[in-house]
């Protein structure tokens, strides 16, 4: 489904440049999504090999980020994109940064996995990590799907789900704090879990940022720094 008709330009080279840009962006999305899955699995299964694998992907993510930036610059310099083409390039340029940051957060989780594997007893909070990890991976996936389909409704769902993730994160934090207060010896190992939870929450924020760019891409609306209700209102106002 290609609602923005990016393959309809008179210039075939322009079509393929935009198409390549979008494909590369979604590919990078796929890579960082896998990083999240692996990092969460590495920490909850205490799998250091998998954690190393996540860390080794970092270089590729960084390279692809730079490649995408370069593609955006090339298109702007050569084609002077306008309207939906311009919005596509801008949205990808901004969202690429979010994807790279998601990769960074996944790396941090992988590092925590390695740190935790060094300690003897298993820390508290794994089930929270697993749940939050699953939800975060879901919204990253959804935000990329919404991007691929130019689907505003799905993007709005991602923003809403990110708010749920924030609440879930707060609950998990409260629990871990209580656990630490019960016995100060729990503190150092719980801290690793807390860092990992924090990274997951951040990933949710980045997925939400990507979704905000979809509003700009499809509707030309800047919905950053708005509540989900305000976003929905803006979209409805424009649909009328």
């Amino acid at each position, binding site marked *: *489904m*290609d*609602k*923005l*008709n990016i393959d*309809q*330009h*008179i*210039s075939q080279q*322009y079509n393929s440049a935009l198409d390549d840009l979008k494909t590369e962006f979604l590919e990078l999305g796929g890579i960082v999504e896998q990083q999240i899955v692996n990092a969460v699995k590495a920490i909850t299964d205490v799998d250091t090999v998998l954690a190393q694998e996540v860390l080794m992907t970092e270089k590729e993510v960084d390279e692809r980020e730079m490649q995408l930036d370069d593609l955006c610059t090339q298109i702007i310099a050569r084609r*002077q*994109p*306008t*309207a*939906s*083409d*311009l*919005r596509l390039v801008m949205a990808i340029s901004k969202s690429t940064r979010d994807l790279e940051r998601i990769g960074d957060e996944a790396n941090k989780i992988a590092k925590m996995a390695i740190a935790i594997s060094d300690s003897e007893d298993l820390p508290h909070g794994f089930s929270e990590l697993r749940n939050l990890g699953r939800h975060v991976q879901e919204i990253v996936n959804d935000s990329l799907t919404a991007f691929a389909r*130019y689907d505003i409704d799905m993007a709005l769902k991602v923003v809403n789900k990110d708010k749920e993730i924030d609440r879930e994160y707060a609950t998990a934090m409260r629990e871990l704090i209580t656990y630490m207060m019960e016995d100060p010896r729990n503190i150092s190992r719980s801290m690793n879990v807390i860092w990992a939870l924090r990274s997951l929450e951040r990933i949710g924020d980045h997925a939400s940022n990507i979704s905000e760019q979809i509003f700009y891409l*499809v*509707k*030309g609306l800047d919905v950053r720094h708005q509540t989900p209700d305000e976003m929905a209102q803006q979209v409805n106002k424009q*649909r009328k």
Partner: protein
Amino acid sequence: MNNSVTTESIAPLASEKTPEKAKTSNVITEENSDAYTTVGQAFSENAKMSMRNVNVFYDEKQAIYDVNLDIGTNEVVAMIGPSGCGKSTFLRCLNRMNDTIDTCKVTGKFLLEDQDINDRKMDVVPLRARVGMVFQKPNPFPKSIYDNVAYGARIHGLADRKSDLDDIVETSLQKAGLWNEVKDRLQQPGTSLSGGQQQRLCIARTIAVSPEVILMDEPCSALDPIATARIEELIDELSQNYTIAIVTHSMQQAARVSHRTAYFHLGKLIEVNETEKVFTNPDHGLTEAYITGRFG
């Protein structure tokens, strides 16, 4: 003020539609060509010129369909659209240049402030002093640089003394950004200048008669990028004092110089909006298709 209506016959933006639907509705056919409404903001609260229900025919062939548009005071309005869309025809109506074409029939109201300039009783000579025009190819008279600029002021009797005329020539050339380049050779023929200088000379000649509106019909299409940049800079400066309507094939030029952009398609005014909006998020699928290079 009726400024934001869409119509079913010509579709709104493609993103709202499925690709198939958007495609079919992007085509204006003979059948749906009569009823349409311009999308966006065609009207201005501070209008210098107001055009209403403009229709233009060349013999039987209709070139412009029911166009309504205001050009605001000190505003730069760019008109864009594919070849043959009627943008130049429309521009030429604004100072009765189409009078010279026998087969051309123009109907509708063209208010320059309160005066209908399409009134047959209207004298076109003073009108063209108020609404000046700059053409695609620089067309200086085969006279000296000085006489080129002084010509209009002389025939309209704007200067009583030689010193007044000197003043007019100097300020006009200064406003056109040409004075420093030609002040030492005012008696040389205008045709001895470079293309970009000739075009600025024509602009100086136009502003020498203190017009209120300047019409520009692709003023940069014969110029190199540097000369183009000079003219665009000049348009920006001139817009402090003059109202400007510019027809251009360069969308980037429209994006750079204008406040509002009007998109014409097959004789219809499809969309008028703030230039920033047109180039980032146009309201109409046809505008979008044209400015992004999806059809030519």
